């Protein structure tokens, strides 16, 4: 699948596994459009999209699906710029991205260039920070976000 995508949109694929394909953010919309239009891929629907904070980079994950052929394609884009994370909007390809991109922007702080109506959705304009980022609460340096150990476990465990 990754090879097909690379052939269809040259210079787009970064890496791939059996489950997902990682594409370059600049080529993301081209790749999505190709997947959408290619009769064999037929990724007609953007089933789900979300952002993931991996500490040193953001991932934007697109779950695409073909209804006619009943298969799923997972496309990821990796963003290294933490302050001004930005990725082209997939709204021109999928109208269903309208609210999902707004949600990702609102909670993860990833800008989608070319989105027609990119405003905060759940939180109000001017809300400080983006809650789903790992550094949202600005916890002190020796404390990691997330749950360090099970509530009933004694002693601190390194993960």
């Amino acid at each position, binding site marked *: 699948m990754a090879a097909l995508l690379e052939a269809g949109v040259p210079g787009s694929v970064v890496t791939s596994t059996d489950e997902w394909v990682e594409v370059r953010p600049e080529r993301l919309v081209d790749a999505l459009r190709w997947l959408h239009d290619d009769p064999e891929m*037929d990724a*007609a*629907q953007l089933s789900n999209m979300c952002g993931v904070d991996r500490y040193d980079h953001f991932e934007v994950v697109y779950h695409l699906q*073909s*209804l*006619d*052929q*009943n298969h799923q394609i997972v496309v990821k884009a990796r963003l290294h710029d933490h302050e001004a994370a930005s990725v082209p909007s997939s709204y021109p390809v999928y109208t269903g991205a309208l609210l999902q991109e707004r949600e990702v922007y609102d909670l993860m702080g990833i800008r989608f260039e070319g989105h027609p109506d990119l405003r905060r959705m759940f939180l109000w304009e001017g809300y400080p920070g983006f809650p789903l980022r790992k550094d949202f609460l600005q916890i002190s340096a020796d404390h990691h976000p997330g749950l360090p150990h099970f509530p009933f476990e004694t002693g601190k465990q390194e993960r």
Partner: protein
Amino acid sequence: MTAALDPIRAARVPLTGAKLVIGVIALVILAGIAGGVGFLVVSGALDGHWYDLRDLGIPIAHLRGWLDEQNKAQPAQLHDLLGDHWISYLTTALIGAIGILSFVGGVLLVLIWVERRLIGRIQVRRGPNRVGPYGLLQPVADAIKLIQKEVLIPNGADRFLFFLPPILVFIPGLLVWGPVPWAPNMNYLDLNVGVLYLIAISSLATIAIFIAGWSSNNHYALLGAMRTVAMMISYEIPLSMALVAVVLMTGSMQLSQIVQWQADHNVWLGALMPLALFTFFFSSTAELNRTPNDIAEAESEIVAGFRTEYFGMKFGLFYAVELGNAVAVGAFVTAFFLGGWSLFGLEQWIPPYLIFAVKVSSVYFVLVWLRGTLPRFRLDQLMAFAWKYLIPINLANTVLVAIEVTAFNHSSLPGVVSLGAIGVVNLVFTVWVARRWARFLGYRPETEHVLHPSLQTQVGGLRAAERLRASS
């Protein structure tokens, strides 16, 4: 489902012996009273005496005569100044006014309960049953609660105009009860322009509602007021047309005469003119803001329409007037179309006002039933229905009735034959014109048949959808 999980079934207590005995005794007593009354009626002992309670107009007339007698004994000066009948006139006017007021008030108190219980029954729940026996005191409790509420005025509302409408709608709501013919001699305000009076009085409420919506300084209220006014103005026309047919047929605008005509001919105008009956009833529901025409206070769209900002007893007044008007519509449908107090001769036996009340209650029940059953139309659909549908076919109906009346007045056939012919012609005409005109306006029921979803076992996307579309 076990009984324990079904509270209604579990709460039903079986009929005990004591209750049965009390019931039988009550039935026997009732039968005895009925027999006694029947004997009195048959023997003619009642006819025309002051204690003839079959028609409350008769005792009042006796009272009038007695008071006029007393009047003659007054000093000549007073007599000359005030005329012959002033005491009797004043007294009977007061009695009638108090009677109407207390009737309307009592009806409102009871009917709130009745409506809520009925709706509760329709909606498989129990309705109010906590305050007093069977929840009968619920309206009183509601009224007390409403009176206790704090008086608030919305920001930017016109104070004077905001307080005026609840009072303004109440006045026509009471005045409309004036010409109701309860019994042959029992009508308070038997105007010879009664029909016109009704239309005039009911048009007064329009302005109150519009002021209410406007002065609330609220978009929902304004939208509701606009809708109400648009609808009231539109539906007044078919409503008046239906009444024109009635007036043509009976040759009188006096409500007592209209009922008397039906009693004399032993026929209900509703059976003679089904189209007029339907038009009047439907237009009345529009004027009343009741389902299916309750777009003015469409809860799911514009919250509560023109009374969104009203609360406390001001809201209570609007609510009460609406309910009272619903009963009033019941009274007028009864008087115009269902034979009023007449019941094919039985009014000699049963007090006519009871017959009338039962008929009114039945019409009211139909209104509640409709409210519990039907969804709501859209504003433009209702408007189109009034202007494109009801008004043209009622125009045609009016012409037809005029022709029939002329023929009826010039014919020497027995009433059964001629009225029967009129009824049949009108029924056929109604069915025919209703169908034809609907088709003319583009209504095609056969193309609008119910589209049940097709059942598929294979999943697919756009291509499958196109295939399905092509195959269906």
